[in-house]
Each structure stands twice: as C-alpha cells, then as structure tokens.
C-alpha cells in the first residue's frame, strides 16, 4: 500500500463511517423483528426492548403453528415454488440454449419477439381474460403458467452460454456423434451449474414472495399461498380467530397480535434466509453476467 495523504486518510474514515451507518440502518429493523418475535410482548410494546431480547416468549410461534390456515398457506407456497421453479428453469434453458447457438437460424427474430414484450404488454385486463378463457382460473396453474419464463433470465442465461462455454467443446462433441440435445444435456448443462443456481434462487424467491397472481386468479381459500394470509394478518388486522377472541381481555389480544405478527415475518422469510448465504456467491456473478450485455 502506498503512502496516503492526510486528505485521503480523512476520506477513508468518512467512507467507512458512512457505510457503517448504512449497515446499521438496514440491519436494525431486521434484528429488531427477530428479537421482538421471541420476546415478551409487554417489553416490546412498552419500548423496553430496543435491540436484543430482554425476556423470552414464544407465544407468537405457538399460535402460528396451531393455525390451520397458515400451515395450509405454507404447504401451498412450497408446492407452487417447487413446481413453478422447475418449469421456469426448464423453459429458460429451452429458450436460452438455441438462442446462444450461432448456427441457429432465426435467433434474432425470436429474440426480438421475446424482448418486445418487455416494453409493451396487453395489461392487466386482457391478460386476465386469457387466463380465464384457458379455464385455469382458481387452479395452481394460474400462478405458474402465466409467468413461466422471464425474458431477462433468458438473456442472462444465453449470455452465459455464449461467454462461458467454449464453442470448440460443443463442436467436438457433435463431431463425435452427439446430437444437439445430448450436447446440451451432457456438456453444456454440467458446465452451467453456477448460472442454474442463480436462476433457481431468482425464480424461487419470486414464487415464494408472489401474491399478485394469487390475488387476482384465486378465490378458494384452501389454495391461497402464504403471502395472501400474511397480507390479511399483517395488514388487514383479521386476528380475531387466531387469538381466540372471547376469553381474552383487550390488552392481551393486542399483545398476542403483536407477537404473532413479528413471529410471522420471521417464519415467512426463514427459507429465503437459510438459502441466502449458500447462494450469495453465485447471484452476484449472475447479475453481473446479465449486466455485461443486458
């Protein structure tokens, strides 16, 4: 490291201080929620607990795990996420591989066809009518098929195929008698695991967090994903059935409500939080591959 002038040293201190401040602002609410979810509601509501828990209570969690609707929502979301992501990733590869091949005639036309939809769409009502006409309203397919693939992800994946998988390997495979699909399956895909991990993460998070399609396409409560129940509980205050109104005093209801809300936020994000550290090294790479030609 070369010698730094005083100005540069001051600069360095200011930069680090600013970033530390940013970290505190981002982290504080996250830590607070986790602490509040395992604390006594009294301490949380009175403002005694301000960062780390000072007392422990798991009322919120036990209420959640005894609520049939939340559990149904959780199960539904898992099913939608697994099935949806599998279809998403398959469709992305199916589109990206041919488009990455230089000898695939018509790839510019097809790419243009896909990219155009980024800038112009029919809008909510015509899209809704298509789903209705297909007769998949109120089924899980309405949450999965209309978003079966994303143009951005096709572009990211195509760029990866073009820039990271040497053409020579594919050519020699084809000389050795591999068909196109065998080349894709045996050579290209095994070399593409990092980008596939990124795609899985992106699509999984998308499905896990989605509520819009469920809001417009589903009416049966037993098909609702977790996010729709979350919306009711976090935002619409429909807590009576959960806290067991009647036997409780008003103050107790308020407290249980708070505990349930904090616990719900934690439970709803648990899978994503668990995946995050494992996939982090991949997703930044993925975003950057997309950025080069995006």
């Amino acid at each position, binding site marked *: 490291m070369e010698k730094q002038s005083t100005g540069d040293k001051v600069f360095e201190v200011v930069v680090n201080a600013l970033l530390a401040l940013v970290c505190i602002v981002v982290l504080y609410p996250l830590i607070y929620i986790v602490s509040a979810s395992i604390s006594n509601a009294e301490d949380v*509501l009175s403002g005694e607990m301000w960062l780390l828990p000072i007392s422990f209570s798991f009322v919120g969690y036990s209420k959640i795990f005894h609520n049939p609707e939340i559990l149904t929502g959780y199960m539904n979301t898992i099913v939608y996420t697994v099935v949806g992501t599998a279809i998403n990733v398959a469709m992305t590869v199916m589109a990206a591989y*041919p488009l990455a091949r230089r000898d695939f*005639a018509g790839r510019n036309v097809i790419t243009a066809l896909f990219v155009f939809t980024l800038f112009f769409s029919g809008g909510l009502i*015509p899209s809704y009518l298509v789903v209705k006409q297909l007769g998949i309203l109120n089924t899980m397919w309405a949450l999965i098929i209309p978003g079966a693939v994303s143009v951005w992800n096709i572009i990211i994946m195509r760029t990866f195929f073009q820039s990271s998988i040497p053409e020579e390997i594919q050519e020699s495979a084809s000389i050795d008698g591999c068909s196109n699909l065998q080349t894709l399956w045996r050579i290209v895909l095994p070399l593409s695991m990092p980008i596939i991990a990124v795609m899985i993460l992106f699509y999984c998070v998308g499905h896990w967090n989605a509520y*819009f399609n469920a809001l417009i396409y589903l009416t049966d409560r037993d098909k609702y994903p977790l996010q729709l129940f979350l919306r009711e509980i976090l935002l619409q205050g429909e807590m009576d059935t959960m806290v067991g109104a009647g036997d409780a005093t008003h103050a107790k209801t308020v407290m249980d409500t708070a505990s349930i*809300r904090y616990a719900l936020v934690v439970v709803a994000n648990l899978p994503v939080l668990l995946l995050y550290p494992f996939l982090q090294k991949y997703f930044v790479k993925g975003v*950057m591959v997309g950025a080069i030609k995006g």
Partner: protein
Amino acid sequence: MDTTSSSSYQLNSVQAKKRTGSRLLTSLRRNWDLYVLISPVIVYFIIFHYFPIYGVQIAFKNYIATQGIWNSPWVGFKHFQRFFDSYYFWRLIRNTLGISLYELAVGFPVPILLALLINEVRQKFFRRFVQTVTYAPHFLSTVVLVGMVVMFLHPNNGILNELIKLFGGQPISFMTEPGWFKSVYVFSGVWQQMGWSSIIYLSALAGIDPHLHEAARIDGASRLKRIWHINLPGIMPTIVILLILNVGSIMGVGFEKVYLMQNSLNKESSEVISTYVYQTGLLGAQYSFSAAVGLFNSVINFILLVLVNRAAKMMKQTSLW
C-alpha cells in the same frame, strides 16, 4: 460435419444474401431438435404476451362476455373520453407521476452513491459485510416489507414514533395521513433495493481500467478527485441506460406495494393508475373501461421511453437501441 457455420462466414455479402433462405433450411434440417426445444417457449410468449396485446382492442369495444373479444361491438374512443372527463383523471395522473418522479429523484442516485462508496473500501471483510447486509432486504416480500413498515411506523408503539416522542415530538400517523404516503413509499423502497441496485454499478466499476487510476495518482489526484474524474465517467454509460429504462416505466408505478400500503384514509394521494385499473376493472368488472385506462398508461410509457432514448442518443451516444 460442422462446417456450415464457419464456411458461411467466408461468403461475401451478396452470396450471403442469396443463401439466407437456404441457410434457414440447412439450419432447420441440422438443428430441428433445437426448434422443437424452443417451440414451447414461443407458444408461451404467443399465448401469454401476444394474445393479450391482441386483446387490447377491447379498450375500443364494449366487451360483452358472451360475445368474446372479437364479436363485441366497436365503440371507438368512448372509454378513453370517459376516463379523461372523470373526476379521478387528474388525481391519478398527479399521484402516478408524483410517486414515480419522487422515486426517480431519490431512489436512482442512492445506489450509485452506495456503489461508489463500497468501491472505495479496502478491507475485504468489511466490503463483503456491507454487501451482504445491503442485499438482504431485496429478498423480503412486498407483503412483509409493508407489514414491517406498518409496525415500525405505528402511531402508538411503532419504534420510529417512540423515537419522535423521546425527542419531545408528537407521534405521526404515517400510514393514514395522505401527506406522508409518498415519502414512506419511496424511502422504504430505497431501504429495500439500494444494495441490490448497486450491484450493476459495482460491476461497471470493476471494469474500469486500473491504469487510469495509476496515472492519476502519479499526477497527484486525491481519491475524491479520482472518483469524480475517473469512476463517475467510467460508469456513465451504465447510468444512462438504467436511467432510460427507469424513465420508460415512469407511468408504471408498481401495483403491489401501492395497493398494500393503500387504505381508505390515504387514498387521495395513493390511488395510482394500476390500482385504479384493478379496482374498476377486476373488482368492478368494467373490463373495457379499465383496459382503456391501462392502454393509455402503456402508450405514454412507450412514448417516454422512445423520447428519452433519443435524447440520450443525441447527448451521449449511449442508447438502448
């Protein structure tokens, strides 16, 4: 034999033109399996993206469910006229534009600043820590984010109001006062997305030639000067492209977050075009009218995108196309 692709490069352009047709045939014959592979994706785009675009015509018709889109009677611009004349028109435009411009003014520069700052950090560990922390909120769902906002801003026991009370202020009911809606919307968005949006600038910064910095250092430039004269110009093309994309969606304030943050008390400043389309269209079953409102919205967006792209082209030679 895999010589078709390489030999076609050697043809001159006249021959290449003659061969275009036969190239497609050769490709079809040799790569038929790739066409089969991509066909479900093409079918998907036709059904779920192009068919709705075709269906946009219901904005000019009186949609009658039993007649279908094709057979419903034409009514011209009747629905557009009704929208322009309606009491809500200016309120919707004001809110949609207001939220977008506010978001652009605050939310667009923050990730750039953050990336410039992160890029200056020398300690690897701290750098990774900052990145990990700031990316994390991106993965929260909109429902959870809005739920957190509501909890933290609650007038009775929200932590922010506790802080205000601590300093002797009066608690503010952020979620129900129309005046606060846009700020809460924009700043919660900055909190959630600044780290994630900074990734693309960080990658652009990583691509800057280190020789430039060395030369500037020898000339005695301070670090601040080097950011200003090297880093910022270096990522300018990325900034311009993202700015174009952002302006292109200026009328498209996302439905999800606005809808979740909306309540009957803050509606006068929170009703935007997309929530209005949902309310009148799907809940009110006025398909044609709200398709017209939606179409009006996308057309303005498209025009804005073209205009900004042209402006950027004239000034900087950087553009989307």
